């Protein structure tokens, strides 16, 4: 293949300019890491399809221009935006509200944080040099990811959340991200959750924003789950119709710890959700699910890296994608079993349902195994709705659209049911139903 040197795109040049301005304004905490992250990004640029990890999601082509970081929005803008916010609304939760990537204290429950939890805003932490900052970026592989490194360079706000040793927090923490504006903007938020030994907590995340505006959120959630701690996480992507939404969750698992993370994707014209799991302690378990519903012109990419670096880890991944219109689904999953990670049990599955003639699904489930005493497997299927099942339902009097909806619901249900928080699960099911209703 010819050796091609990519010219810098307008978006790349724009990001460099934006960084030069932004770096002056950030508080000094992590400024070295910020510089390093941006230098990394500058060196590799926006990934095109020539980069293996972005083979199906060409960010270089999708991000023509770099949108400027949004300033802190005015109070009345915040009020108007929040009045319409729907994500996990009505659920009893401790809310941390971000509007255009900035933590809005007035719309957050900072004063009613449950016992056992401490919350520091990222801004505060950066200004005061909080020791927790040292624990950011808990998974090494993220350092070679341009999306995560862009977030590291530009992170403007967020929170550091510590769940104390042994604390079992019932009320979920809801990270509510709301975008608003009439022109394109970008956001970069970083949340770090540290669950100390034997702690247990539930995190909800919702992402929404204006339709038809090409805004560019880039959110990262770092999670450190210490020995025997349990972390439950449900994420809802109902971003606006023109958003290019990038996100990462990077979790480090201690011995016998557990993570459950479920991501439901409905929104954004292009979304890429990256999941990094690092099994640092032995016998940790992970349940990672994804449910994606796509319509006209959308592309959704779920990229997973599960790195088993300790004995006896168990990981279960289940991704369900429903493709309608001319949309594209992407699943890239990689299970690494390092030489010391004997007795690892990893199972990964990606199923896709193609409802239209113009949709497409790209699956790439990888295994990289260096230990001999393991049970690892992966499966991928792709196809249309089963005619026999449709016939069965229609023979019992259901009109075709309803029969289809029922089957799609059952298909996605498997991934959504894993959510252990009842309210969150119900909210996801409501989203599935709403999508099907819109489809008609």
């Amino acid at each position, binding site marked *: *293949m*010819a*050796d091609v040197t990519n010219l810098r795109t307008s978006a790349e040049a724009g990001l460099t300019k934006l960084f030069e301005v932004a770096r002056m304004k950030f508080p000094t905490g992590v400024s070295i890491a910020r510089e390093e992250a941006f230098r990394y990004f500058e060196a590799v640029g926006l990934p095109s399809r020539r980069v*293996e990890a972005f083979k199906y999601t060409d960010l270089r082509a999708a991000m023509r221009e770099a949108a400027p970081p949004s300033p802190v929005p005015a109070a009345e803008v915040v009020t108007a935006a929040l009045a319409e916010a729907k994500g996990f609304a009505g659920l009893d939760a401790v809310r941390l509200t971000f509007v255009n990537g900035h933590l809005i204290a007035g719309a957050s429950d900072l004063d009613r944080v449950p016992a056992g939890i401490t919350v520091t805003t990222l801004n505060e932490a950066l200004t005061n040099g909080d020791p927790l900052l040292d624990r950011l970026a808990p998974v090494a592989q993220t350092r070679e990811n341009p999306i995560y490194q862009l977030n590291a360079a530009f992170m403007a706000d967020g929170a550091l959340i510590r769940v104390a040793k042994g604390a079992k927090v019932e009320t979920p923490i809801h990270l509510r991200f709301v975008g608003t504006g009439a022109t394109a903007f970008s956001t970069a938020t970083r949340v770090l959750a540290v669950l100390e030994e034997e702690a247990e907590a539930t995190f909800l995340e919702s992402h929404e924003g204006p339709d038809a505006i090409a805004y560019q959120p880039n959110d990262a959630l770092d999670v450190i789950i210490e020995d025997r701690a349990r972390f439950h996480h449900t994420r809802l992507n109902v971003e606006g119709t023109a958003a290019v939404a990038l996100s990462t969750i990077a979790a480090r698992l201690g011995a016998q710890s557990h993570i459950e993370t479920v991501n439901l994707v409905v929104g954004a014209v292009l979304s890429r959700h990256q999941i990094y799991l690092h099994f640092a302690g032995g016998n940790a378990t992970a349940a990672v699910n994804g449910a994606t519903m796509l319509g006209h012109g959308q592309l959704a990419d779920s990229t997973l890296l599960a790195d088993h670096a300790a004995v006896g880890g168990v990981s279960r991944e289940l991704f369900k994608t429903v493709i309608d219109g001319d949309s594209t689904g992407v699943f890239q999953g990689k299970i690494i079993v390092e*030489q010391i990670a*004997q007795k690892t049990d990893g199972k990964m599955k990606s199923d*896709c349902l*193609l*409802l*239209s*003639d*113009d*949709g*497409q*699904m*790209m*699956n*790439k*489930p*990888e*295994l*990289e*195994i*260096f*230990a*001999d*005493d*393991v*049970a*690892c*497997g*992966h*499966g*991928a*299927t*792709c*196809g*249309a709705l089963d005619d026999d099942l449709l016939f069965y339902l229609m023979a019992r009097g259901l009109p075709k659209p309803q029969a289809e909806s029922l089957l799609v619901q059952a298909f996605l249900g498997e991934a959504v049911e894993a959510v252990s928080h009842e309210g969150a699960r119900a909210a996801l099911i409501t989203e599935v139903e709403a999508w099907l209703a819109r489809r008609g």
Partner: protein
Amino acid sequence: MPAVQDTVDRVRAIDVDQYKYGFETTIEMEKSEKGVSEDVIRFISAKKDEPEWMLEWRLDAYRRWQTMKEPDWARVSYDKVDYDNIYYYAAPKRPAAMSLDEIDPEILKTYEKLGIPLREVEVLEGIAPERRVAVDAVFDSVSVATTFKAELSKAGVIFMPISEAIREYPDLVKKYLGSVVPVTDNFFATLNSAVFSDGSFVYIPPGVRCPMELSTYFRINERDTGQFERTLIIADKDSYVSYLEGCTAPKRDDNQLHAAVVELVALDDAEIKYSTVQNWYPGDNDGKGGIYNFVTKRGDCRGKNAKISWTQVETGSAITWKYPSCILRGDNSRGEFYSIAVSNGMQQVDSGTKMIHLGKNTTSRIISKGISAGRSQNTYRGLVSAHKKASNARNFTNCDSLLIGDQCGAHTVPYIESKNASAVFEHEATTSKISEDQMFYCQQRGLTNEEATALIVNGFVRDVLQQLPMEFAVEAQKLISISLEGSVG
């Protein structure tokens, strides 16, 4: 679960140290100058007495190759080849032989030692294997003998070295050469297009079932040479051919390059079965020496109901970079890929297949078994794709890997791309899903899950491997008898 002792012993028994074909033949050779240049290409072309168009084709490939970069996406690492330090052409000095008696006795001895029947008489009298196989023997850069040519031509089958075909059947060669693997397909294929020296050409006319198996046996002998063979097989309408390929090389401390291109074309209702037992010298236990096997193999099911089946048993080579593929262009066409890749010592294998569904009702099946031992790395890399018009495409993929010892690695990198809603793709890594009916049948008769699985997969693969000549079959049988116990996806 870890591999059982029996399995470990069996794999040890086919250890790299026991490479049986590592001897060297001392013979006077004629070589081109070292390195590749337009002059060297002109030299090769002149040696082969080629028409002008062929030389132009080569030179065009060479110019394009100079602008290309060696691919680095495969999961293999090796000292880069110094393309200026190898001979691109090496041939025994004796003039081309008209009959076996004229061939250098040293070469005959070599093939005897390798167990390759070059004497038709012996074969006919049943001294050598019972099955009759026509052989094209390629020694470094040239074909030294092709057997049963006369009998085959009675059936209308053309089986000859490609250099001869270029002279005798230029229209056929012109029409099909480079039509499956384009000149600029990839770095190694382009290099091959520029400097290929010999290989086999097969044409099966319409309605003919090739009366015997065809085979080519490749031997690299000379030091510091690369082997760049080119094989072109055309199965015209409603014909059938089974083709076998074997390869060995002497034990040497330095690496040698083998960059072949194989093109298969199956027209309406035709079937091509292509089997390989690849046993190039794999290098010693510390990874010294061995062949770099960078091969482009592709079949094109150009007509409706065409079928192409690849079977490969891969045990040799220091580095393997090889993806025999099928383009399923004709409606109702079918592609198959059965592979057993065993790596040991310091070997690195990155192999798999591509099934590209373009036509309607096309089906494909991939069965791949990777076994890694020692400090080797064994990767399956495969693509299954359905294009927009490939309605009702079906694929079933099953890849198992087995690790023996904790110093090796087994990797799976499948790409599954579907652009058609009626296409159904299944990619399975768990062996229990092969066929529940068959499993049930076996289990009912008292076999355990493991035994039943092994029986089904082995039976399945064996069926294809039994097509191989005896010399190959022995080795292959050893490999297949390795149980599936402890396998991972």
